[in-house]
């Protein structure tokens, strides 16, 4: 069980590519994570603070709409509101396409994999209106630049992010004794974010916290808010006066401010339960649903020793022999399946027809829904399932096979010869049954489809 370039690309990257060579070594794998973000530059995705401008425009339009007199004036404003929203939808489709292109072209597949991993770990969604289209801008700004430093920075970045504050209802949570609660009786705490930060983002559901900790943390969090003009905003008038005891420590005091919140998040980020939870989740995501206990322990130990320095943590995962078990294990979630297929097919941007978002929706968006993963719209803050069995359902598999058989041709037009494509997609991993299918299929589309539909390609 030792390093293999092919396995590195399949298990820790975006899959094999007919163009981009797999990483030569673990240090090669890690090196790209800290260099310039080539893919972000080549295939840009709007950062969230620019997306916010759209929300400011929309707020102004709605305000004008409320004040406008007469059907005609209201109608004109309504049209502008719709146009702004539709533009956001179209742009989101381009960002989706750029995500696929990053998977296709990257030399640092682990970078894109980590972006998916952390985006899912810190799931946040816009609830209604144009903000629904801000998922990728959120990942681009709050997550992507923070994936190789300390976990505390990543945790702070997402926990104070407008999209997260909106998604987990923090923005309007106010301390029961806060100035605003005294003025407006009925307003009070919302524990949603506090709970999910402990349960999902840090310590894990079996971590050593109690409901009292959640309650205290919700009080500590009161004040985390945002507005579209300025983005994140700490509102002292929302804050609960006095210190809060969370996990046995007192945070804050007489003066309501953001710094005790950040202090708590830093402490939380190096909590042993957090180390264990993050280590386990990384191993489950990258290696196996039934993780090797030694591997989890090793990664967790390096996490603790480095105070949650993520690059060190990834290194710990990659240096352990159990990470290199040669048999392919985890089933790719649908988006990873499709994106890695795009890589194997060497998709080019023009093939995505970016000026016709309907095509992308039909060829990738809707099929993903059929496979069980509506793009950027997981059902809850726990994100997408990790278990293989959640994806390999009759309808999910039928949709995958169907996609593999029909969509590659629509996407790339001129399909490769299946006998070569099995190498592009699977390298030496192609089992005899796939090699046979590649030459026995009656058409190119079926040959390519069977290779992509094979359990071998769907696992990593």
């Amino acid at each position, binding site marked *: 069980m030792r390093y293999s370039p092919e396995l590195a690309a399949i298990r820790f990257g975006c899959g094999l590519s007919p163009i981009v060579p797999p990483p030569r070594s673990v240090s090669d794998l890690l090196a790209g994570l800290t260099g310039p973000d080539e893919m972000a530059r080549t295939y840009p995705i709007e950062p969230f603070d620019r997306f916010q401008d759209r929300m400011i425009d929309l707020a102004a339009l709605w305000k004008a709409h409320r004040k406008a007199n007469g059907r005609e004036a209201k109608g004109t404003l309504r049209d502008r509101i719709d146009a702004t929203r539709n533009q956001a939808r179209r742009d989101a489709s381009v960002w989706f396409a750029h995500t696929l292109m990053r998977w296709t072209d990257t030399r640092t597949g682990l970078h894109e994999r980590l972006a998916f991993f952390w985006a899912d770990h810190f799931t946040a969604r816009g609830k209604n209106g144009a903000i629904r289209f801000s998922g990728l801008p959120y990942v681009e700004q709050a997550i992507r630049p923070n994936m190789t430093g300390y976990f505390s920075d990543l945790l702070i970045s997402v926990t104070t992010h407008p999209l997260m504050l909106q998604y987990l209802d923090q923005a309007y949570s106010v301390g029961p004794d806060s100035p605003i609660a005294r003025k407006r009786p009925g307003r009070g705490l919302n524990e949603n974010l506090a709970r999910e930060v402990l349960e999902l983002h840090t310590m894990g559901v079996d971590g050593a916290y109690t409901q009292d900790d959640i309650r205290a943390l919700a009080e500590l969090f009161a004040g985390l808010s945002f507005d579209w003009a300025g983005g994140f905003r700490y509102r002292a008038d929302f804050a609960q006066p006095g210190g809060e005891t969370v996990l046995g420590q007192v945070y804050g005091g007489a003066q309501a401010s953001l710094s005790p919140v950040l202090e708590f998040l830093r402490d939380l980020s190096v909590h042993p339960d957090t180390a264990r939870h993050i280590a386990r989740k990384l191993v489950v995501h990258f290696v196996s649903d039934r993780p090797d206990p030694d591997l989890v322990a090793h990664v967790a130990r390096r996490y603790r020793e480095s105070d949650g320095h993520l690059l060190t943590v990834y290194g710990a995962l990659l240096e352990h022999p159990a990470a290199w078990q040669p048999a392919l294990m985890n089933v790719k979630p649908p988006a990873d399946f499709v994106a890695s297929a795009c890589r194997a097919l060497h998709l080019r941007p023009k093939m995505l027809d970016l000026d016709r978002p309907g095509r992308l929706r039909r060829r990738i968006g809707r099929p993903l829904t059929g496979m069980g993963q509506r793009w950027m719209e997981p059902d809850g803050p726990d994100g997408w399932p990790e278990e293989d069995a959640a994806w390999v359902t*009759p309808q*999910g598999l039928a949709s995958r096979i169907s996609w593999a*058989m*029909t969509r590659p041709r629509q996407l790339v*037009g001129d399909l490769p010869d299946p006998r070569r494509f099995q190498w*592009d997609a699977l390298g030496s991993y192609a089992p005899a049954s796939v090699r046979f299918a590649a030459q026995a299929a009656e058409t190119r589309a*079926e040959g390519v489809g069977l290779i992509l539909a094979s359990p071998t390609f769907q696992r990593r």
Partner: protein
Amino acid sequence: MTPDLTRRGFLTRSALVGCSAAASPLLTRVSFAAAPWDTRLVVIILRGGMDALDVVRPLGDPDYAKARTGLLRREDTVIDLDGFYALHPGLQPLLPLWRAGELGAVQAVATPYRDKRSHFDGQDLLEAGSMGLGDVAGGWLNRALGQVPGASARTGFALGHGEMKLLAGETSVTDWYPDTALSLSPQAALLAEQMMAEDPLFHGAYAQAMALMGDGQEGGAGMDDPTKGKRRPPEHVNIASYAAEQLRGEARVVGFSLNGWDTHRAQTKGLTRALKRLSQTILTLKRELGAPVWGKTVVLAMTEFGRTVRQNGTGGTDHGTGGALLFAGGAVRGGQVLGDWLGLQESALLDRRDLMPTADLRAYVAGVLQGVAGLDRTTLERTVFPGLDMSGPTGLLL
């Protein structure tokens, strides 16, 4: 990867032309633009290599029966066509068409493809219409459409899930893909089954999916349409109905594929099923086009190659060379099997195994295009089928 990235990009872009909204079967056509000509052409690509010698059986040849003892079943009724050839029982439903002069075949024809006997390359050349692979961009039917003034994107339709390089190229055509959940050709289903069988998790889900979708082995997957809650007709019938609907309107050229012809094993079953689909397809076209339009229609069914003269060791046949072109419709001169016959004695075979092609398949197709779309010989020999010599006889059309 492909060294020729420019061509690849070009093909891709062109292949994607055709507006999906316009192609939606749910939309009502609002205007009938004047079509450039009146005759309808349907080109069916039989993917996998149809065994011409089993479909149009040269029973009058003394060497035929002994080469195929296992493929000629005693219980089969002999459907004599002309005293020499007999029809495969799977095409029995089309016998009335033969009698009415609406069905015929050309035996022992091939594209210029030789030697390697690869499905993918063979199909590529069949659809490119050139002498060699990579000689030209796009498919011959696309280039033919490009030669006709007044052809719009609604003149040519490429239908179905499969690739139709035949219609890909510079000229805009309409692409439509039936919105089916899972439909595998019998061969793909078999290969998928073999792959899935190695992985219990996948195999379980796959088996259930196939059961839910209906029997993919029989006439293409008939499956439940969740939107309607009742069984839909098989995909090939859907496609034929949709093709007929388009051809009654503005469309003049439709291309689609029928898979399932790669009969390496258990050919008597496999070919019967494939021929059943072909019969259903042609009968659906005839029925749904209605007599007046059917009378102006030419259906050509062609395949990348024929199969070995002698049956193999698994009740089937392997990849060969010389094959057959089937033609049907109210506008053809049916009731005849065309083509020169050299016999099946070993010395007459190609590489002592394949039916020797006696004519270029493209010549017959070119003759049809000449009659249907009024293309002249120079255009056909230089642009549509580069390198073709049309001096031989054709004569498929009335």
